[in-house]
């Protein structure tokens, strides 16, 4: 029979798990299918009826119901069902009803068994069917060691510990004997017992500081300090430390973020070692490390701009090495903030010290540690309340322009919505910022919040970090008490919906009638971020990162059981597809890197997973509308 004349084979070839079948197997399937039409509303499968075929939905849509009668799953073109019953006991567990007029292809049980036996991808698919989304996300994680390896694995020796009163020279000698590049300085615990631990001598100690070989050069020798002076005089006090069960990746980020080369590792409060940069580099050569280091060594804007190409390549390498979205986002955020910070340092060097203290903050994706390679600059200046526009604004206007132009030169395009410190409105003293946020929350309207919701993701990059913290405190305190504000935010968040219909039209697009792509940011990650932000605001979370916000939300009863996990997986998947496609563009030297995915580039599997993720988002959006209704005016 000339089966190739029928569209059956070509249709199945587009959808998982058939998309991975070799041609010969696919032919065999296409030749053996039976067909039947079901009108909308009719039952396809009734609970407990015998089943001896795999069902493939050629067109239409069906709904699968749980024992309780609730909706278990909604399937559409290219989806298969019945396989779990075939693998189990040939009895239908979940009844299926046609939601739309549907055409079904049936694959006989014997052939289904053959496919499972002969094709690993096929059997993996049917084995993990229910857990599809979760399985892929976890698969991606397994690929990255940095995230799962704990810091303690990199610690091979005890730290050198000295008392605060030890003379510098003696400490230096001990460092020579131990062949180490730093010492940890211990002191008697102060009144707070939180930071103390008992040493081997059974005495209580606390980690008071750290002294590195570089400090001997830059602080002791350079300043002519006596070798007999106590180490406490030149040590870095209250050093940044990390817990021994944190990931190597976290340690790396911690060092990058704080621009330190040595990181004490603690088991509870007890120092068990010191991690230094070469340790990590040895563990995993990681280009973004060098890049950040490089950023801080550049002395003018043109040198910085020359590094921007490396951002793209290190991003692509990170993705290829199997980094997840969190790692990628944090690396890009660290890089982006480092550019801003270095530019501010250079700006200050050129314009002189600031007339009043300030804090330079980033907003949006950069603040959430979730930028992708296409992120533009969203920033603002919070100035000290002593700020006097007449006398001081010229300086900050110039500084803002210097940074903004510099960032643009380094590959961070100007913000189209003019949310930049160069805009006078976003270059204001702290009290004005407090008024802004107060107004947004006390007298909100969806229109008013439409463009300002970006301000609810905020992080300090340089200067007085405390200003941003004050704003974060204000938000966390007030937002949960403002139902109208939450409702207005929720209304805006529902404006962008996931492209659920996209997958049905996909086949039509293949015919070449029109080419279309999905914007994974606009239709996927952005609405999900919006949605999570609202729940986070409602529960008074101060977290900025979407995963961290989900952690905070998980501690409340805001979301029904299981939803938090699903949102997490959906966000990871949407982010990763987006990130991988950007990396793909970069590796192929394509000029345009954007957030769109062309259907041809998606494997059938990716399409299926995306669809799952979009569905999670869609359900969560519906819930959002119910959870944060606009209170009626009378109340």
């Amino acid at each position, binding site marked *: 029979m000339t089966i190739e*004349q029928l*569209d*059956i084979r070509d249709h199945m070839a587009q959808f998982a798990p058939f998309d991975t079948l070799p041609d010969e197997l696919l032919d065999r399937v296409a*030749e053996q299918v*039976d067909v039947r*039409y079901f009108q909308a509303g009719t039952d396809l499968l009734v609970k407990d009826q015998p089943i001896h075929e795999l069902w493939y939905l050629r*067109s239409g849509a069906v709904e699968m119901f749980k024992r309780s009668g609730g909706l278990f799953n909604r399937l559409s073109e290219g989806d298969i069902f019945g396989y779990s019953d075939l693998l189990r006991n040939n009895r239908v567990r979940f009844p299926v009803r046609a939601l739309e*007029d549907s055409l079904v292809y049936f694959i006989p049980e014997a052939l289904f068994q053959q496919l499972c036996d002969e094709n690993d991808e096929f059997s993996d698919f049917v084995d993990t069917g229910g857990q599809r989304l979760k399985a892929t996300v976890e698969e991606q994680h397994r690929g990255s060691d940095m995230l799962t390896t704990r810091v303690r694995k990199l610690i091979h020796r005890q730290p050198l510990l000295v008392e605060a009163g030890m003379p510098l020279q003696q400490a230096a000698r001990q460092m020579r004997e131990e062949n180490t590049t730093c010492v940890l300085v211990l002191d008697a615990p102060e009144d707070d017992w939180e930071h103390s631990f008992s040493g081997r001598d059974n005495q209580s100690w606390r980690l008071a500081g750290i002294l590195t070989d570089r400090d001997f050069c830059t602080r002791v020798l350079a300043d002519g300090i006596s070798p007999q002076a106590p180490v406490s005089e030149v040590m870095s006090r209250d050093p940044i430390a990390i817990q021994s069960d944190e990931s190597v990746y976290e340690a790396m980020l911690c060092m990058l973020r704080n621009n330190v080369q040595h990181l004490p590792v603690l088991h509870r409060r007890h120092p068990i070692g010191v991690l230094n940069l070469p340790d990590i580099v040895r563990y995993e050569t990681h280009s973004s490390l060098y890049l950040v280091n490089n950023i801080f060594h550049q002395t003018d804007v043109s040198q910085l701009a020359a590094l921007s190409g490396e951002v793209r390549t290190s991003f692509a390498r990170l993705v290829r090495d199997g980094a997840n979205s969190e790692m990628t986002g944090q690396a890009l955020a660290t890089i982006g903030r480092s550019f801003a910070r270095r530019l501010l340092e250079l700006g200050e060097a050129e314009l002189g010290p600031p007339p009043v203290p300030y804090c330079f903050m980033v907003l949006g994706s950069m603040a959430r540690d979730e930028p992708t390679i296409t992120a533009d600059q969203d920033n603002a200046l919070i100035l000290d309340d002593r700020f006097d526009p007449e006398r001081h604004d010229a300086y900050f206007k110039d500084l803002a322009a210097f940074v903004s132009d510099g960032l643009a030169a380094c590959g961070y395009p100007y913000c189209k919505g003019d949310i930049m410190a160069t805009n006078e409105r976003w270059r204001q003293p702290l009290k004005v910022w407090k008024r802004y946020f107060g107004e947004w929350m006390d007298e909100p309207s969806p229109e008013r919040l439409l463009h300002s919701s970006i301000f609810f993701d905020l992080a300090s990059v340089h200067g007085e970090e405390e200003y941003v913290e004050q704003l974060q405190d204000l938000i966390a305190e007030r937002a949960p008490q403002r139902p109208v504000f939450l409702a207005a935010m929720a209304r805006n968040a529902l404006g962008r919906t996931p492209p659920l219909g996209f997958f049905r039209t996909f086949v039509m697009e293949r015919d070449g009638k029109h080419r279309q792509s999905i914007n994974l940011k606009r239709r996927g990650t952005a609405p999900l971020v919006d949605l999570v932000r609202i729940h986070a605001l409602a529960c008074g979370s101060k977290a900025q990162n979407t995963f961290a916000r989900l952690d905070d939300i998980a501690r409340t009863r805001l979301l029904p059981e299981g939803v938090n996990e699903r949102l997490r997986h959906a966000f990871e998947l949407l982010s990763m597809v987006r990130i991988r496609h950007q990396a793909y563009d970069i590796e192929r030297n394509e000029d345009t890197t954007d957030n769109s995915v062309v259907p041809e580039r998606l494997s059938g599997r990716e399409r299926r997973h995306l669809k799952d993720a979009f569905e999670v988002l869609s359900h969560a959006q519906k819930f959002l509308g119910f959870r944060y209704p606009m209170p009626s005016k009378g109340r």
Partner: protein
Amino acid sequence: MATRLFSRLSKQVPDWPTYLASRAKDAKDPRLERYYASGTPDPDTPIGEVPLVAMDLETTGLDASRHGIVSIGVVPFTLERIRLSEARYWVVAPRRPLSAESVTFHHITHSEVASAPDLDSVLDELLACMAGRLAVVHYRPIEREFLDAAIHERLDEHLLFPMIDTMSLEAVRHRRRHWLWLRRLMGRPPASIRLHESRQRYNLPAYTGHHALSDALATAELLQAQIARHYSWQTPVGTFWR
């Protein structure tokens, strides 16, 4: 007798079981005899219990007296399942010349037809496939007239049997005025377009048309959809055949 019966077809439904029984007795060709002997179900049989076979012919034109058959697709089915594994498809050489026009229409080339067998040599297989099954076509006159003419030309006997026409089921339902308008036209517009349009009404997917096998499959699906929407599996089969 056959011609007399045929001329009355449009006005009333012939007594198909009687006609087939009598032809089983007087058919000269053993292949036709066997086919007729397989008979037809009782008109009161519920449609849901009747074995069916969707059939589509591609022809060199629209006039059975001047044009010939180039391909035949048959798909056995019931309302429960369309059995693609039992579907058959033949390219056959018409005894009348193939025009360039019809080539573009069917994608069947001169060389394909040149190497194809005569209908006579595939008749046994074709009739075996149809025996005991009620034929389902989209636009009955083409299949009925072309098949009858081709067999008459070769065997000097008629081949007539009951058919369910999905197009007239559709016309009765949706397009009576359209239907009259269509009949005023001389020939018929390309069949696949009407098949396609009818299918759209039931949300059936679009297939590549003008292929006897895919049109036969499309017709089988359409009948399932029509019965599901407008009739029931209990409706007597005699209601449908002509």
